[in-house]
C-alpha cells in the first residue's frame, strides 16, 4: 500500500516534470522528443536548431510558419520555383511525403523571436511602410499586407507565412525576386502580382517597418478562415 502510494507519487512527480517540460518546449526552446531533430541537421545547421533563423540575411526563420507554406517552399526549391542552389541541391531527391513531414516539424516549433531591428530609419520611411502594411494603397490597387498575412502579421493557416522575426534585407530580397519573377509561388502567383506594383522605396519602407515590430504576444498563425483574400493566391486556395 505504502509502496503503491510512493510509486504513484513518483509517477505524479514525473508527470508534472514531463508536462512542465512539454509546456516549456511549447513556449520556449525545449527539445522535441523526435528523431526528426537528428534527421534535419542539414536544415538546422543554417536555420538554427529550432528553425529560429540565424543573425544574417541568408538563413531566415522557418519555425512556426504554416506547414503548407513551408512545404510549398521546399517543393519550389526542389523543383526550380525558387532558385537558391544550396537548397535545391539538398532537396533534389527528397519525396513529397518527407518534405511534408519536415514542414510540419518546423511548423510546430515556436522558439523565441529575435530582437527587432534597431538601426536608424527616417520616420517618414517607417510611416510609409506602416501605411502599406496596414492599409495598402487603394489608388495603386495594392492590398494591405495584413489583409492576407493576418492582423497580427503571424500568417494564416494553411499557406500564408508570418512576416515577423525576419531581417529587413531578407524581406526586401524576397520582394525583389518576386518582382523580377525569379521567385515563383503556385499559380496564380499573387505575390508576384503585388510586387510588380511596388517601387524600390515601397520595398524599403515595408521591410524596414516589418523588421522593427516587437515580438508578437501570440506567435501562432491565424486559423484558416472563409474570409475572401483581396486577390487569388495559388498557395491559399479558397
Amino acid at each position, binding site marked *: 500500500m505504502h509502496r503503491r502510494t510512493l510509486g504513484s507519487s513518483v509517477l505524479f512527480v514525473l508527470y508534472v516534470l514531463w508536462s512542465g517540460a512539454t509546456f516549456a518546449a511549447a513556449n520556449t526552446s525545449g527539445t522535441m522528443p523526435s528523431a526528426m531533430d*537528428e*534527421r*534535419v*541537421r*542539414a*536544415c*538546422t*545547421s*543554417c536555420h538554427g536548431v529550432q528553425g529560429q533563423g540565424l543573425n544574417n540575411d*541568408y*538563413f531566415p526563420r522557418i519555425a512556426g510558419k504554416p506547414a503548407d507554406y513551408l512545404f510549398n517552399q521546399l517543393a519550389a526549391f526542389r*523543383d*526550380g*520555383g525558387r532558385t537558391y*542552389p*544550396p537548397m*535545391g*541541391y*539538398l*532537396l*533534389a*531527391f*527528397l*519525396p513529397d*511525403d*518527407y518534405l511534408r*513531414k519536415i514542414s510540419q516539424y518546423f511548423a510546430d516549433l515556436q522558439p523565441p523571436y529575435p530582437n527587432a531591428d534597431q538601426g536608424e530609419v527616417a520616420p517618414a520611411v517607417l510611416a510609409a511602410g506602416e501605411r502599406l502594411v496596414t492599409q495598402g494603397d487603394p489608388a495603386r490597387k495594392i492590398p494591405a499586407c495584413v489583409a492576407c498575412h493576418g492582423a497580427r502579421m503571424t500568417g494564416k493557416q494553411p499557406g500564408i507565412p508570418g512576416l515577423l522575426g525576419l531581417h529587413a534585407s531578407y524581406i526586401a530580397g524576397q520582394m525583389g525576386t518576386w518582382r523580377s519573377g525569379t521567385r515563383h509561388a503556385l499559380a496564380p502567383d499573387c505575390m508576384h502580382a503585388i510586387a510588380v506594383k511596388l517601387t524600390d522605396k515601397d520595398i524599403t519602407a515595408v521591410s524596414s517597418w516589418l523588421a522593427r515590430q516587437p515580438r508578437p504576444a501570440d506567435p501562432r498563425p491565424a486559423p484558416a478562415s472563409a474570409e475572401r483574400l483581396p486577390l487569388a493566391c495559388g498557395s491559399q486556395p479558397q
Partner: protein
Amino acid sequence: MKSTSRLSRALRALRSLSDVANKRRHAVASLACGALVAGLAMSVVLPRAPHVLLIEEARAAEATPAATPATTPGANADTRPDIVKRGEYLARAGDCVACHTAPRGKLFAGGLAMETPFGTLYSPNITPDAQYGIGTWSEEAFFKMMRTGLAQDGRLLYPAMPIAQYTKVTREDSNAIFAYLKSVQPVREPNHKHTLRFPFNQRKLLYGWRTLYFREGEFQPDPTRSVEWNRGAYLVEGLGHCTMCHTKINMLGGSSQSEQFAGGLIPVQNWYAPSLTSDKDGGLGDWSIKDIVDLLQAGISDRGAVYGPMAEVTYHSLQYMTGEDVKAMAVYLKTLPDNRGRKSGPSAPTNTNVFALGEKIYADKCAICHGAKGEGKLQHYPPLAGNQSIEMDSAVNPIRIVLNGGFPPGTMRNPEPYGMPPFAQELNDTDAAAVVTYIRTAWGNHGQPVTARDVNELRNAPLH
C-alpha cells in the same frame, strides 16, 4: 514521285498495322479480341497518319537515302499492359527520366540542359507527340536507334545518350521500352537546339568518335557464368550505363576499355565516381553483396551512403528495381577484376598543427554523429574510419560533402533520410582543409592531406 513515296509509306503503314494485329492475335485468345485490338490500333493510327506523313517527308529531305531507316509511320507499339509495365520497369533501369525530363518539366518532354566540356546539349522530347516527340517512330526505328545510335532521320546521336551501352539491349527489351514510351502523355514541346562549340557541332565528327568508342552489338552472355551474373552484367553494362560515370572520360569524350569501371572525375559536375572494380582502395573489393545492394537500392548501407549524382541514380532508377536485379548487379560488380591493389602501411604524415586543428573541429562539429573515433552510427551516420569514399586518392568527394552536405535520396527503403549539414558557410578554407585532412588520415585511414586551395577550388563547383 512525291505521291508514290506517300503511297508506299501508306502501304507500309497498313502492312505494319496488319503485323500489329497479327502479333496481337498470337497474344489474345479469340479473333474478336484481335479485331478489337486492331480496331483500337487503327483509331490511334489513322487520325494521325496524314500529319505523320508530312513530318516523315520533311525529315527524309534532310537525311541521306542510305541512312534513312525503312520505318513505317504509325504507332505499332505493343499495347499489352504487361509489356507496357515491363517497359516502364526497363525505362527505370535505363534511368531515361533523369535526362529526358527537365526540372519542373513534363515527364519525358526533354529540354534538360546537359553541360559538357564541348558545349551544352539538350535532351529531346521522347513523348509520343507526333511533331516533337517519337509519335511517328516505329518499333523498328526505336530499336535501330538503341542498337546503332542513329535517329529515325538517319542523324547520328551525340554520345550524351549512352548509345555505347544501350546497343547491348535486346530487341525484346527495346520493344517493351518503346511500348511504355508510347503509352505516356504526349507533350507538344519543341526540342531545344544544342549549343556546341565548333568543331564539336559538326555531327560528322561523331563518325570518328564511333570508330574509337562505339561497338555495336547486343550483350553476349558468358556461358561459363551463372544466369544471375549474366543478368547483372546485362543491366550494369547495358541499360544501367554505369560506365558513363565510373570510367574516366578522356579528352575526346570517350572512355578506354582498359580503364573500364576504374573510376574517374565526372567533368563539369565535379564529383568523383569511384572505382567499381575489386580495387580495395576505392573499389568494391571489401564490400559484401548486402552492402552493395543496400547502397544501390536504399541509398544507405553499413559502408556509406550515395550522394551527388549517384543519389539521383538511386532516386530515379535503382530504388525501383527488384531485389533480384540489384543483387544480380552486385554479383556481377564483385567479379570486376582489381588492377591496383589496396594501399597499406601507416597513414600519410600530416602537419601536426593542421592535424590538431582538424581534430578539434571534428570533435566540435562532426563527432556528435560520426563518433569520436569515426565509427559512425549504422546506417544513418556512415563510419568515416576505413571509409573508401573518405580515403580514396581523389579528395573531391570528401571536400564537397563537408562543404555542401547532402541528404541521401528518399527511397522506398529509406523514405526519411538523415541529412549531412553543409559547412561551407561556417568553415573557411583552412578549417575545412584541416578537418578533411584529419578524417583522411586519422584512425589508420590512408588518404592524403588536402590544402586550403583544394577546398577553395571546389567552393564554386556546380550544385544541381
